[in-house]
C-alpha cells in the first residue's frame, strides 16, 4: 500500500472517468474507478479509499441510495457529481451524509479544491481540529468565542455567532440549509430557511467588506452556504 491518497470514482461515463483519472493521477492521487453502484459499494469496502467521488446518475441504482448505504458503515468523505438543475437530488444526497458536491461541467480547480477540503476533513476526524479559523482579515477563535476583523473585535449576537462558528468549523464544505438550521436553530426549525436568509444578511453586513459581493460566506444556490477560509 502506497502513501498517496486513494480516490474511488463511481461514474458510469467513461469520458468523465478518464478525465478525472488523468487529472488526479497527475496530481499524485491513486485512482480506482467503478461504473456501477454495486461495484462502487464493493470497491469502497475492499479498497478503503480516502475519498469517494460519486455520480448521482448511475445506471443500476440511485446515487442517493449509494450515499445512504456507504454512510451505514463508513465516514469516508463523499463528493457528489451531478448536473445543473438537480438541486433537489444534491440536497438529498448531502442530507444523507455526502460531504460536498460538484456540478458538471466542472473546472479542475473546483475539483481539486473539493478534494483538498475532503481530505482535510477526513484526517481531522482522526486527528486534531484547528481551534482558530482564519479567512483574510477575519479570525474566529472557536475556543474563546472571539471574532475579529483585523484587530477589531466584532460583536455578534448569540445566534449570529452560532451560525458563523458552525460554518467556520466546517470551512470549505458546503452546508445545506437544513443542516445549518438543524444545528443552529434546532430540528423543529429545520424548514425555516427564512431565518437563515435574514441572519446571513446580518452576519455578512458585520463581516464582509462588500456584503453584496461576499468573500467569506458564499451562497450555494438552492443548496446552502460555504465558508471559505485560508487553510
Amino acid at each position: 500500500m502506497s502513501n498517496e491518497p486513494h480516490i474511488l470514482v463511481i461514474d458510469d461515463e467513461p469520458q468523465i472517468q478518464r478525465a478525472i483519472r488523468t487529472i488526479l493521477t497527475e496530481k499524485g492521487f491513486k485512482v480506482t474507478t467503478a461504473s456501477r453502484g454495486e461495484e462502487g459499494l464493493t470497491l469502497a469496502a475492499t479498497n478503503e479509499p480516502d475519498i469517494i467521488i460519486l455520480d448521482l446518475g448511475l445506471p443500476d441504482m440511485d446515487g442517493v441510495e449509494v450515499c445512504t448505504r456507504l454512510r451505514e458503515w463508513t465516514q469516508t468523505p463523499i463528493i457528489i457529481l451531478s448536473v445543473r438543475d438537480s438541486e433537489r437530488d444534491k440536497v438529498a444526497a448531502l442530507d444523507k451524509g455526502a460531504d460536498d458536491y460538484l456540478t458538471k461541467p466542472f473546472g479542475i480547480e473546483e475539483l481539486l479544491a473539493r478534494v483538498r477540503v475532503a481530505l482535510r476533513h477526513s484526517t481531522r476526524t482522526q486527528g486534531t481540529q484547528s481551534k482558530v479559523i482564519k479567512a483574510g482579515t477575519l479570525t474566529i477563535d472557536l475556543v474563546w468565542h472571539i471574532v475579529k476583523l483585523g484587530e477589531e473585535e466584532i460583536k455578534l449576537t448569540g445566534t449570529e455567532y452560532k451560525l458563523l462558528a458552525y460554518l467556520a468549523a466546517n470551512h470549505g464544505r458546503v452546508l445545506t440549509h437544513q443542516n445549518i438550521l438543524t444545528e443552529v436553530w434546532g430540528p423543529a426549525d429545520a424548514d425555516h430557511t427564512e431565518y437563515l436568509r435574514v441572519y446571513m444578511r446580518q452576519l455578512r453586513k458585520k463581516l464582509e467588506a462588500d456584503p453584496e459581493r461576499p468573500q467569506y460566506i458564499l451562497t450555494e444556490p438552492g443548496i446552502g452556504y460555504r465558508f471559505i477560509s485560508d487553510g
Partner: protein
Amino acid sequence: MSRIFIFQKGIMKSVAMRNSTFILRSSHYLLAWGSVALVTAFLITLRAALDTALVSLLYLIPLSLITAFWGLGPGLTSAFLTFLTFNYFFIQPYYNFAVHRPTDVVILVIFLIAAIVISQLVGRMQSSLAAATAREREATQLYELSTALAGLHDRHTIAKIIAKQVQEFSHGEAVELNITGTEAFVLRLPESGQPPRPAEWVGPIQVARGVLGEIRLWRAGPALTSGEKRLLQTFASQGALAFERARLAQAESRARVLEESDHLKSVLLSSVSHELRTPLSTIKAAASSLRSDDVHWDSAARPELIAAIDDEADHLNMLVGNLLDMSRIESGVLKPLRDWNILSEIVSSVLVRMKHLAEEHRVEVDMPESLPLVPVDFVQMEQVFTNLVSNSVKYAPEKTVISIRAFVDGDVLHVIVSNQGPQVPQEHLEKIFDKFFRVTAADRVTGTGLGLSICKGIIEAHGGKLWAENITDGLAFNFTLPLIWAGMPPPKLPMDTETE
C-alpha cells in the same frame, strides 16, 4: 316559447290517441250519434215553427261541427243518420220513411249530398291540418336538435344532447347511446340504468365511413309509429353528422398543433446547431492547435487558446442549460421550489457569478433593506436575473449603466432591470419574449434567442408578469412577483439583538 308549447301539445294529443285508439274511436262515433240525437230532439220541439228546408239547413251546422271534432267516420255516419232522422221526424208524413211531396224528395237528396260533401271536405281539411302539425313538430324537433348540436366538438356532450332529445320526443323510460370505435363509450339516460329487457327501438348512428354506434330506446306502452321511427332515425343521422364534425375538427386542430411544433422544432434545430457549433469550432481549433507542434510551450498564444477553450465550454454549457430550461417550460414541468428569500442575496449571487461577463458595464443595485422576503425559487430567479443582465450586457454599449431596483407595489414586488442600450420598436416590445425572436439580425449577436422567453416562463410560473418598456435613455425589463405565498404574507422575524 310558442314553438315548445305547440310541440308539447302535439305530444299530448298523439299520446292520447295512441293510448286508447279503439275506445277513443268508438267513443267518437257514440258522441257523434248522441249529438245527432240531441240536435234532432231540439229541432222536434221547434218543428211547428220551422220550414222543412230550414230544418235541413239547420242540420248541416252540427254535421260539419261533428266532422271537425271527431273526424270523417263519425261525420259520414252522422250524415246518414241525420238523413234518416230528417226523413223520419221532419218530412210529412211524420214518423215513417215515406215521402209524398216531390219537393221533399229533392230536399232530401240535396241534403244527403250536401251532408256527405261537407263531411268529406271538413274531414279532409282536418286530416291535412293534423299532417301539417305533425310535420311542423318534426321540423321543430330537428331544428332544435341541430341547433343544440351546432358547434359542439365534445363527443360526450353530443351524445348527451341526442339522448335527451330522443327521450323527450319519445317519452321513453331510458335511452342508451353506444359509441364504438377507438374512443368507445356508453351514455345512459337515466344514469341509473336500463329496464331489464331488450330495447324497443334500436337505430344505427351511421356515417359514410361506417357505423359509429347505435341508439337504443326503451319505451313501454304502444309500439312506435312509423312516423316516430322515421324521426328517431333522423335524430340518429343528425347525431352521426355531429360526431363526424367533431372528429374532423379534432383532426384539424391536431394537425395544426403538429405543424406548429414541427415548425418550432426545425427552427430550434437550425438555431441550436448554429449556436452549438460556434463554441465547438473555437474549442476544436484551440485544442487541436495546442496538440500540434505549431504552438510552442512558451508561446504567448498558449494561455490565450486555453482561456478560449475554457470560456467557450462555459458558453456551451449555458446554451445547453437554456435549451433544457425551455423544454421544461414548454412541457410545463418547471415548478418553482419556493422559499422565503431575500431578493438582494439572489442578485448578489448572480453578480458574483457574472463578474467577468459584466465587467465592461457598471451594474447598480438599488434594493432597500426594508424589502420584504419574497417567496421564490432561488435558482430560477438567479436564472431570470442572469438572462436579463446578460441581455443588457449584450445590447447596451460598454461603460453604460445597468440598473437593478425593486420596490413593493401593493401585494407584489416590482423589479426593474434597465439598461442604456438601444430601444426596441413599440411593435416588438411583446415579441422579444417569443422564442427565437430577435430585433437584430441573428448573426450579429450570439445566443439561442431563448433567454427572455425563459425569463417569462419562470416569472409566470411564479404567478408574476414580465414586460419590457422603452425608457428615455434605453430599455427596461419590468417584472412582478407576488408577495403572498399560500395565503401568507412575508414573515417578520423576531431578531435577537444582544451580543455575546
